[in-house]
């Protein structure tokens, strides 16, 4: 099979809301099966939009996204929903259903998409929660969880149906260093245990470079660099250097575009 190596293939992808301000331009990307691939870039570089395009929530203006050999935007509603059952997504702040308990959140997809008996659902939910270390918290409500715990529950929910593709939208945003390490570790471990493929959209360089296999660096809708984590750390590309080492000024300026400072302070009168 021609598609056996790459689970996700993106070619010539362009996306814009307003044609004069493209969000993604000419993206070509291949995500190999079984790997953890990170898409990095500063806020507003089009990373989340890319995830939405892969998940079929948006349609590309030009080009295409193929997942498991199928062009996503050509699928009808049923086809897309069948595809989504094999995808898991972790949203930025978890997006847990606030009116359901931790247990019911993880059981949600099993109950919606399968006819499994309740006893089996119970076992599966507890296994998923055990794998993220929160089996003991299954009775709690999302409002009773800390940010890190909520993220882990959302992770358990994302892998509820053993997806082939797991997408993470900023999984590290707003977490303390311990939770950060836990989530980073889980992303790697779950990917390998489930034989899945993962896409991690993030701007947390240090944490993600530790555990990913490959990195795409996005800036203003373009892929400006790609490579293994080691290559990124050694990259001479100024944009990548500024990003990886967190330098405050560089190709991405500290100042938002503005008029002359002296003019603004009326010193040139």
């Amino acid at each position, binding site marked *: 099979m021609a598609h056996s190596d790459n689970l996700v293939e993106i070619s010539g992808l362009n996306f814009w809301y307003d044609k004069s301000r493209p969000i993604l331009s000419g993206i070509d990307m291949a995500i190999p099966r079984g790997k953890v691939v990170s898409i990095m870039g500063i806020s507003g570089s089009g990373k989340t939009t890319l995830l939405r395009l892969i998940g079929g929530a948006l349609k590309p203006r030009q080009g295409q996204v193929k997942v498991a050999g199928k062009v996503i935007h050509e699928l009808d509603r049923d086809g897309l929903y069948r595809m989504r059952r094999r995808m898991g997504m972790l*949203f930025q702040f978890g997006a847990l259903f606030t009116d359901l308990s931790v247990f019911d959140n993880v059981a949600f997809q099993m109950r*919606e998409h399968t006819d499994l008996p309740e006893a089996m659902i119970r076992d599966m939910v507890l296994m998923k929660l055990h794998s993220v270390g929160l089996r003991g918290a299954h009775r709690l409500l999302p409002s009773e969880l800390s940010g890190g715990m909520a993220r882990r529950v959302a992770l358990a929910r994302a892998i509820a149906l053993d997806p082939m593709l797991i997408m993470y939208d900023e999984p590290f945003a707003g977490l303390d260093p311990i939770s950060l390490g836990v989530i980073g570790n889980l992303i790697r471990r779950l990917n390998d245990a489930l034989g899945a493929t993962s896409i991690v959209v993030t701007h947390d360089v240090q944490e993600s470079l530790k555990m990913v296999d490959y990195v795409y660096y996005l800036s203003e809708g373009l892929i400006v660099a790609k490579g293994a984590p080691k290559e990124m750390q050694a990259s001479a590309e100024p944009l990548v250097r500024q990003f990886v080492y967190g330098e405050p000024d560089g190709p991405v300026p500290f100042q938002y575009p503005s008029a002359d400072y002296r003019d603004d302070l009326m010193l040139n009168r």
Partner: protein
Amino acid sequence: MFNRFAIVNVRTIGHHTVNGLWRLGYASRFFALILLQSGTSFRRLRLIIRELYFTGVLSLIIILVSGLFVGMVLGLQGYQTLQTYGSESALGVLVALSLVRELGPVVSALLFASRAGSAMTAEIGLMKATEQLSAMEMMAVDPIARVVAPRFWAGVISMPLLAAMFSAMGVFGGYLVGVVLIGVDEGSFWSQMQNAVDFREDIVNGVIKSFVFGVAVTWIALFEGYDAPPTAEGVSGATTRTVVTSSLAILGLDFVLTAFMFRGV
């Protein structure tokens, strides 16, 4: 100068009209989608029953208490007026007809809009703002089928029941004031009421009214929530719009329905 002013004004009017029409079209499409996606709700009645508790059962207290007070006021005011013509024995008829035909459906719908409608809008708006609806969509579950449709049917089912309880409570309030407090003859209070209130003309029409109000209020509430901008101001604005728009819709529809139902009666 005047010309430019006029052009700007015309443009604003045009903009608002187009915008309003667009929203109406979007809301109608949303309504059609709710009806199309209602299958799941009826296959899994548990979903509707859960929402019936939140929209119907939790609105009971405000509906019953208001019904009692409205009925008591009707008893007082009605007695004052009827006494002038020496026909205070017709108090039961006055109380019952006003409640069953008008006040029951209308006041309970207004209360329902501000109690349950605003809660629905806020809940769905917040679910959208916290990406819960997107998450559901990504899990291949249609939020309209799973979240919106059960709430819609719960609203439509509970509205006529709440209106009926409001009217019953109101009649009891009128009885308390008229018969127990003021001393109108109990026999004529009930028997005249029984004679004058017609099942088809009065009660069925009242139920139809409250059914229509139920559809309007829940539709508006759900649409506003689903369409709310995903921010704090967005959700609060949508909640306000739900109460304002559905109150106006109730009163407007009430006039239209009354005009059709009670011609020449």
